[in-house]
């Protein structure tokens, strides 16, 4: 079973000096926080805010290569969680064949946003992620912390 996830926001986590990509399912029942580095957060934020950078950034370049050969990103699936590390797969369609490529969730999400491709999470990942702890953590955050990205 997989559940479609939507990007709820991007937050700065001052305790770990990292960013958190927050994914949420349609009805807000499931939440998935994924810690990412500053560069990766920047790549996601630019796609979120629809900012066209003056130069193609790394994930724009990635998308251009796929476009050059008419390869399409069908979907991205967060497939596993192991000791706080998430694993993702990118599903591609190219010349009537499907390909699956392993990736970090941050890269996969940055590419999915640029390809208008849906992001899914496996049920096992959602179950592993204890949402209780997260909710408590989120409660302590102010609303203005959401969707902000220091650059």
């Amino acid at each position, binding site marked *: 079973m997989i559940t479609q996830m939507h990007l709820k926001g991007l937050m700065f986590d001052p305790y770990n000096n990292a960013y958190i990509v927050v994914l949420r399912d349609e009805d807000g029942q499931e939440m998935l926080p994924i810690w990412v580095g*500053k*560069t*990766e957060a920047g*790549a996601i934020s630019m796609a979120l805010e629809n900012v066209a950078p003056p*130069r*193609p*950034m*790394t*994930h724009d*370049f*990635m998308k*251009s*290569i*796929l476009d*050059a*050969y008419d*390869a399409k990103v069908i979907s991205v699936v967060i497939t596993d969680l192991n000791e706080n*590390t998430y694993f993702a797969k*990118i599903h*591609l369609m*190219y010349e009537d064949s499907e*390909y699956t*490529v*392993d*990736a*970090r969730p941050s*890269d996969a999400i940055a590419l999915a946003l640029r390809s208008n491709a849906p992001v899914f999470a496996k049920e096992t990942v959602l179950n592993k992620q204890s949402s209780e702890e997260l909710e408590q953590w989120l409660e302590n955050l102010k609303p203005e912390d959401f969707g902000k990205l220091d650059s």
Partner: protein
Amino acid sequence: MSQTDTPPEQGLIAYKVDRVLDETNTDTKILVLARQDGRSDSFPIWIGAAEGHAIKLALDTTLTPRPTSHDLIKSLVEHLNVKVRRIVIGDVKNSTYYATVHLENNGVERTVDARPSDAISLALRTHAPLYVTEDVLARRNTANLDSWLAKQDNKNSTSQQEVGES
């Protein structure tokens, strides 16, 4: 990088990545290219810290616990059976360099524009040759270059190998 002896087109000079230097006091790194034929020419390109890190990882052939963004690009092209034929730094405007990545798949060639840092990160990972056009070499702004080189030579005279020989 495996390099071919003859450039695929006229007006292309083969280069290689010499080293990545830290620029003190700023969040940038300096990517230094050197001519493949050994002729003296240090060609610095200022790049971001993250981009410099990606190139350093490829230079040192460091295995990272997770695939980096450029490892993913390599993985994507491999899955699609696309070959990275060459990287060409083909334009410069206001000290900003522009690169083109030449790809091939079953005889179908495509070119994709990229920042030199992304192009070179991919070239190092796919063992693709790197070229700079004569036009870019002629038009690049060398006014800052000489003072930069002098500064580097002072700073690195003990720690870095000399590339410039007359």
